[in-house]
């Protein structure tokens, strides 16, 4: 049997539309978009078309889209750039405890530089409460950064409500939408965001390309110094093939977002229900409704995530986990701890993230294979032994 790839929150396969849009850029259309000659002008034209497409998909203006190397750079630029550009106004930043490390580690670094950061807690489903955001605002607050949807548990945050609060207090609002773009409709105006990060490879575009939307008039420092590319705000020779591939993938994803979303939600919910009904002592992590269409995240008690992933991999199924052993530290995922899971439950988390490439047959196969794997791992788990014995008493 072919491999079953259910790790689309990590990265996705490049779609044919993106690939065919990119190929000419590796052939005749190799020009430097900043060159004055015809070869360069061709590249410039292609690049600006890509920028318009990306802008349209977000409800933005083309001149508000800046191509970057990916989600991490976009987050770094937005947060550091806004922090330093507005330092005279204040030094306080508000974010949440469940942001991606590209946001959290950037904020932690800024704390070392003298900024103050509030990391808002979330509820048991991973939701940020907009009232908490408002309550955290001080006269020193210069930036709010909240993700659109969480990469681990798929929870979709109330961005437009937070956007209204940010606007009322005239505070810059950045949104890490890396997991949201291409999965749920994104509109920078109705969301009320001033900056928005996205990454090409999360929606079947290429790796190494992303974008930062910066609303006209938002004060943000330059992040990469050098040439005059990206209207002098982000130096480096433009990644034309990347931008073109990302734009093609984004257009495809956004054009079919409703139809694809409905199919994914049906598949996602069948997978969730199937796991919860077949595997005792398992629970869903994240919200059941405010949830990315392709995200499944469950905790399976008395098994450890990495062992589970390795067993699944041997069965040809690719997933991911928030266990300590997959994070490179002794602590499990900060997101799972933030929603209140005890360490031992967080260690047994399994994320299966679907995309339009997945099929109902694959869901069946996972539901067939997973309970067996869990049973084998539990059979050798001293914790499960103790638990069952405790129950018999």
């Amino acid at each position, binding site marked *: 049997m072919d491999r079953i790839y259910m790790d689309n929150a990590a990265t996705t396969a490049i779609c044919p539309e993106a690939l065919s849009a990119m190929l000419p850029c590796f052939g005749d259309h190799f020009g430097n978009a900043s060159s004055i000659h015809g070869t360069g002008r061709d590249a410039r034209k292609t690049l600006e078309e890509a920028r318009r497409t990306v802008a349209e998909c977000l409800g933005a203006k083309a001149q508000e889209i800046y191509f970057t190397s990916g989600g991490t750079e976009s987050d770094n630029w937005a947060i550091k750039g806004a922090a330093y550009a507005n330092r005279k106004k204040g030094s306080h930043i508000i974010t949440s405890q469940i942001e991606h490390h590209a946001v959290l580690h950037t904020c932690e670094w800024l704390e070392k530089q003298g900024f103050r950061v509030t990391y808002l807690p979330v509820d048991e489903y991973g939701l940020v409460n907009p009232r908490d955001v408002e309550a955290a605002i001080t006269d020193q607050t210069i930036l709010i950064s909240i993700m659109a949807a969480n990469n681990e548990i798929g929870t979709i945050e109330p961005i437009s409500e937070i956007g209204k609060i940010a606007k009322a207090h005239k505070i810059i609002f950045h949104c890490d939408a890396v997991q949201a773009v291409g999965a749920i409709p994104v509109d920078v105006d109705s969301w009320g965001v001033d900056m928005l990060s996205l990454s090409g490879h999360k929606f079947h575009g290429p790796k190494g390309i992303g974008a930062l939307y910066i609303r006209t008039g938002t004060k943000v420092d330059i992040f990469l110094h050098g040439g005059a590319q990206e209207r002098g705000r982000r130096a480096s020779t433009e990644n034309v093939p990347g931008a073109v591939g990302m734009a093609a993938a984004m257009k495809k994803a956004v054009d079919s977002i409703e139809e694809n979303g409905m199919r994914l939600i049906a598949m996602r919910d069948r997978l969730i229900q199937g796991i919860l009904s077949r595997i005792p002592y398992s629970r869903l992590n994240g919200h059941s409704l405010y949830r990315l269409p392709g995200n499944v995240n469950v905790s399976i008690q008395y098994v*450890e995530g*990495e*062992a589970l992933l390795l067993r699944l991999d041997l069965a040809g199924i690719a997933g991911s986990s928030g266990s*300590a*052993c997959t994070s490179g530290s002794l602590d499990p995922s900060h997101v799972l701890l933030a929603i209140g899971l005890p*360490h031992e439950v967080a260690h047994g988390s399994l994320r299966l993230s679907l995309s339009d490439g997945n099929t109902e047959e694959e869901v069946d196969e996972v539901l067939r294979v997973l309970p067996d794997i869990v049973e084998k791992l539990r059979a*050798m788990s*001293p*914790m499960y*032994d103790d638990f069952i014995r405790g129950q018999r008493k």
Partner: protein
Amino acid sequence: MYSEKVMDHFENPRNVGEIPDANGVGTVGNAKCGDIMRMYLKVENGIIADVKFKTFGCGAAIATSSMATEMVKGKSLKEALQLTNQAVAEALDGLPPVKMHCSLLAEEAIHAAVEDYLKNHPEEAE
């Protein structure tokens, strides 16, 4: 990231289970860190006649448990107490640096089980 030997011991762990009439049992680790190992020993005439384990943990935790049981089976208590995590890791053709603590846990689990036996058989302690 894992050697073939680690994957072999993860996929086909040796000596999994428990010994109902074990005369030495040791449990180390805690669920908070994500690894718990429990070793069961059947000691006869100063020799580890049988050894089994149960482990909650990652691939390396399972593989090091399995390897450690193989390394002490049929050995004297003294030899078992000399088992080191380095020896377990080497026998598995190495472990990623972040997983070395798993081999330490395997060493500690074996030692804890031997010490449990010796606690009840102080005459055999040297």
